[in-house]
């Protein structure tokens, strides 16, 4: 028992080391949204015209706050043609939309419409609505750090989850799809 005082610093060191070690593995971008459980911000964006959607529908619909509370959970995905990681995650978004029937609205962040169309034409356009956020103001309303960023919105239009960075197959399968299922 008397040896305890000698072991104490070692124990304290071990505790700190373990916490720092865990901290090293954390992604500093992975912070919960400040909007969690709150209604999504007010916005009204013009549509991206001339889309060739994979499901064949032709209309170009605008995207506004009222389109986010439809009784069904959905995703809002910030993307741009100039963003590399957006390209990486796009096939995964397409897969969620086509094989799992997930509604995904796109917000085209600070982008040129022609380039955005080319981007979607190349990778496949499975977005429901796409709004154009030319000056990035809506992204700031959502608290976006950097694109791509994806928000899970529940049926009442409240923000339930924020995923910064590209969605990996693992995140889609183990985080986003189960969350959407539980919100149904």
């Amino acid at each position, binding site marked *: 028992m*008397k040896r305890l*005082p000698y072991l104490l610093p070692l124990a304290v060191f071990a505790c700190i080391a373990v916490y720092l070690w865990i901290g090293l593995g954390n992604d*500093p*971008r992975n*912070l919960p949204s*400040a909007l969690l459980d709150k209604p999504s911000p007010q916005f009204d964006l013009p549509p991206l015209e001339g889309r060739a959607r994979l499901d064949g529908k032709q209309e170009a619909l605008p995207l506004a706050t009222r389109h986010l509370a439809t009784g069904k959970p959905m995703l809002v995905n910030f993307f741009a043609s100039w963003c590399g990681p957006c390209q990486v995650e796009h096939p995964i978004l397409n897969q969620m939309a086509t094989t799992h029937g997930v509604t995904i609205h796109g917000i085209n962040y600070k982008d040129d419409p022609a380039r955005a169309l080319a981007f979607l034409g190349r990778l496949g356009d499975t977005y429901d609505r796409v709004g154009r956020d030319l000056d990035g*103001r809506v992204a*700031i309303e*959502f608290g976006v*750090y950097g694109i791509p960023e994806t928000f899970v919105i529940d049926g009442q239009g409240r923000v339930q989850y924020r995923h910064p960075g590209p969605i990996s197959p693992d995140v889609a399968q183990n985080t986003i799809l189960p969350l959407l299922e539980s919100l149904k």
Partner: protein
Amino acid sequence: MRLFLLAILALLLAAPAAQAIAPSEMLRDPVLEARARDLGKELRCPKCQNQSLDDSEAGIAVDLRRIVRERLVAGDTDVQVKAYLTARYGDFVLLKPPMKSTTWALWFGPLAVILLGGVVIWRSARRNKARLAEMGDDGLDDDMQDDNPLNTDGEWESAKR
């Protein structure tokens, strides 16, 4: 050589003035601009997380600097500007964490550790003093002569108790 040293000195003096803010971003009202600068130093660029808003050239930092200035021109107080940003980006945008129940450990933890350390040192010092006084009686610790063969680890304390 002297010219070279002067040039280095000039560069060193100029360094603190180097900021990411472009002249076109600045407000014409010097009072508001000064407030915007003070806020820019206290706010974090969400993209490049260890830089302040004023130090960063990231697109989002430029946008947020513009919003800070917009809010100031609209008549917001500094507190209102910060509230506007924390409503969207969370407390994380504040470089100095706010004092609230969830951050008490952060603010008072170090003080608690120092106090705890002080208590430990004070107690062990008192014990050492008592021990020395005890030894002072005959200069020899009685327990040291305990020839229990089990006490082979040579540790003075463990032998003593």
